């Protein structure tokens, strides 16, 4: 089932110097199926993040339309930085979306605690962000998104600043969580390896003005693990995605 469709979406940002302006996106078309894990892959500055912000409603398109199948579902957003409240403890951070919706404190606490536990943060509820490592902060950020029980999760290069082992662990946890909750995920990245590992489908974007240069469906096994990372099919996927990225540039 189609969840959302972008039709001829364009976005222009005014620039500081007079008369100028940057065409960030031009004529972006794609549709997202419910339950898919879709990566948006492209070089820096190609407008990947802009696409996410348009979908989330933080920005509005200058041309084209973004249409939802039915009502807009519950969204979650994970930024490149953990974007936590430094003054608040881990549980309060994870509870933020629920507090903003004025959920009763007890229920909000229970949901936040459960989300933190799923991401391996049980026992850290009282810690403040600066006491955590980069990977753990990102886990809090994901737990915060999950606490609101999203149907669509938008992730903007969430693991770009993490070291490789942390990144792989988070990739696996993200896949597990997404599958269990049946969440549709749109994942922005500039890593060929990461997108090939995670996605059912990779949308490759070209340089500015950004548009979809390639749409690659990957036939992924349900279970992805260390063995899959070494498998020829993973190498194939990476080759396919990597070639498309080179071609788009």
């Amino acid at each position, binding site marked *: 089932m189609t969840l959302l469709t972008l039709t001829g979406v364009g976005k222009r940002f005014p620039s500081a110097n007079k008369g100028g302006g940057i065409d960030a996106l031009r004529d972006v078309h794609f549709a997202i199926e419910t339950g898919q894990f879709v990566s948006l892959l492209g070089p820096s500055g190609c407008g990947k993040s802009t696409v996410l912000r348009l979908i989330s409603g933080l920005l509005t398109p200058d041309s084209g339309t973004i249409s939802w199948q039915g009502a807009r579902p519950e969204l979650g957003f994970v930024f490149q930085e953990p974007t936590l409240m*430094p*003054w*608040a403890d881990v549980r309060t951070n994870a509870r*933020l979306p629920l*507090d903003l919706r004025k959920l009763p404190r007890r229920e909000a606490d229970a949901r936040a605690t459960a989300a933190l536990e799923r991401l391996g943060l049980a026992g850290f509820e009282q810690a403040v962000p600066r006491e955590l490592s980069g990977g753990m902060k990102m886990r809090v950020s994901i737990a915060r998104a999950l606490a609101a029980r999203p149907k669509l999760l938008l992730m903007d290069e969430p693991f770009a600043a993490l070291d490789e082992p942390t990144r792989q662990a988070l990739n696996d946890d993200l896949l597990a969580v997404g599958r269990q909750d049946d969440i549709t995920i749109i994942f922005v990245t500039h890593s060929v390896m990461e997108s090939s590992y995670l996605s059912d489908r990779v949308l490759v974007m070209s340089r500015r003005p950004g548009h979809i240069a390639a749409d690659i469906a990957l036939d992924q096994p349900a279970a992805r693990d260390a063995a899959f990372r070494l498998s020829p099919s993973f190498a194939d996927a990476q080759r396919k995605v990597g070639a498309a990225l080179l071609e788009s540039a």
Partner: protein
Amino acid sequence: MKRVFDIAFPLVLGIALLLSWQWIVQARAIPVYVLPAPSDIVRALMDNFPSLMTSLTATLTITLLGFAGATIAAVILAILFSQSRLVERALYPYAVVLQVTPVVAIAPLLLIWVGFERIDLALSLMAGLIAFFPILSTTTLGLKSADFHLIDLARLYNASRWQILWRVQLPSALPYLLTGMKTGGVIALIGEVTAEFAAGSGTATGLAWRITESTNRLEIATTFAALALLALLGIAIFASLSALEYLLLRRWHESAIRRSR
């Protein structure tokens, strides 16, 4: 060990200075109305202790009232600024004018308007006027420096302006507010003392008035005692605000975290 030295060195130096002061005054037989020895100042402090304490309390109360008023007004105005660019553009220049006009210059007017029968209120207002601007400018900066990704996130969950202000912007501004309060608290005292001098003798009862009175009577030792109390008061205000800052920020803000090396 390092902490012991941090306290011991200034202490030893201070005692040495006081002793040489005492010695010079005695050796050269300097008259007490020119430069009293530390022992004379201590004696003056003891002799006038009750009345000096009354003055100290008056100065402290007036300063704190003015400072509290300034803090509340500055935070409210900073919040208005953060909510509306228009309000900020319209009002900010006047806030600057208020700041650059010396308090001594407005003091006579304020005294007339508020009236000498309510001298304490007039003095509080002047203490507050001078403390207002630093608190306003740092808090405005703090409210604007909130992480915009965090604000975006709150918007994504349909947060109201009020929720964003309360949950994101105000906590982000807290370190800035406290910095403004440290500056404001100390200069509120300066403002109060200046205002007392401007008000002249008669109705005022604070430490500045005691300084005027005692110099007029050539009781210079009492002048020094009042001066010492004023200095202590300033230090106490700064130390309390620093302690408050440490308590509120120690868990999360870089400025309050002691790093182990």
